[in-house]
């Protein structure tokens, strides 16, 4: 069912893909993950187009939120599901085709060597990746890095990079309540609180026209900070 490729070892790697209205591109994003032999957990976050009917017909684990809750909620659902299976490693992977498939192994490497509990992707560790980031986006992400650092005490080189990898133990300790996009900051808070070992690894981001429009514009950034601050007040 997985295109003839079945590396038994990789079955313990669960790739969680949050999906919302990705209709036209979703199959081409998911199929390579399946072919690679990973256990793919596709979480459709209440899409209003035909995304769910496409996803459910693919040879992978597919889950469906009856209502749209947000990316953070979809990731948490995927992680909870993967932990209920035989997942040894759990990877977050965006659905819009912006990530490079081969980067997954790069992120898993420190986990397999037991050098880290969590590995985060960064597009600012290699000159070639850095140059691929549009200038406006670069400034926004730089600001995000500082905001995240100040709020969580975890200082990184990138913010809101959708590619992350966790050991089973680390994933079990992460419990996301931030349903929207503020989950990226919440993950850092929990990494710090749970005293997990975190490292960054270089990842390439492909900026397609689609991922640019679906990305997070200025207004979203403001909303994220608001979400985080409100959560601080309302425990």
């Amino acid at each position, binding site marked *: *069912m*997985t295109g003839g490729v079945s590396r038994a070892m990789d079955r313990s790697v669960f790739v969680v893909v949050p999906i919302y209205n990705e209709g036209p591109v979703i199959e081409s994003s998911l199929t390579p993950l399946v072919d690679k032999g990973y256990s793919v957990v596709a*979480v459709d976050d209440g899409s209003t187009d035909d995304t769910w009917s496409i996803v459910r017909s693919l040879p992978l684990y597919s889950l469906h*939120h*009856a*209502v749209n809750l947000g990316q953070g909620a979809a990731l948490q*659902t995927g992680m909870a599901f993967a932990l209920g299976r035989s997942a040894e490693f759990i990877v977050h992977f965006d659905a819009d085709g912006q990530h490079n498939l081969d980067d997954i192994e790069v992120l898993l490497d420190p986990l397999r060597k037991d050098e880290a509990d969590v590995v985060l992707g960064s597009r600012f560790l290699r000159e070639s990746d850095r140059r691929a980031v549009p200038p406006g986006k670069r400034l926004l992400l730089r600001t995000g890095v500082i905001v995240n650092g100040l709020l969580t005490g975890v200082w990184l080189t990138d913010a809101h990079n959708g590619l992350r990898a966790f050991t089973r133990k680390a994933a079990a300790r992460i419990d996301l309540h931030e349903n929207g996009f503020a989950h990226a900051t919440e993950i850092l808070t929990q990494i710090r609180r749970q005293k997990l070992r975190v490292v960054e690894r270089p990842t390439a981001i492909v900026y397609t026209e689609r991922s640019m429009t679906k990305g997070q514009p200025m207004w979203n950034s403001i909303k994220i900070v608001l979400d985080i601050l409100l959560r601080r007040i309302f425990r």
Partner: protein
Amino acid sequence: MRPVQFILVVLLMVVTYVYFNRLRSGLLDRLIVLVFAGVGVVMAVIPNFTTKLANLVGVGRGVDLFFYLAIVGLGFMCLLLYSKIRDLESAITELTRALAVRKANTPEGVEEPHPE
């Protein structure tokens, strides 16, 4: 009695009636609404009373005092509603998640884990 006083009293009575009739609320909530409505009627009928109260705390007119209190009250209500909405959201999230996990599709050829 000026017309505006009459209108205010009638409106207060309508709101109270609707609350008691339509919303299934606890005894305490009903009591609070009744007290508020009573105070409202007193304030509408005897404006001098609220002005005296306002003078006591250093505000010139009863209307102004009421205005300040109303703003604070509205802010408080917003916070209350907000935290209620957050509670609701997390309940919906839990339900949606449980349903999604229970109804998950498994690819062919993969064995389901044995229920523990």
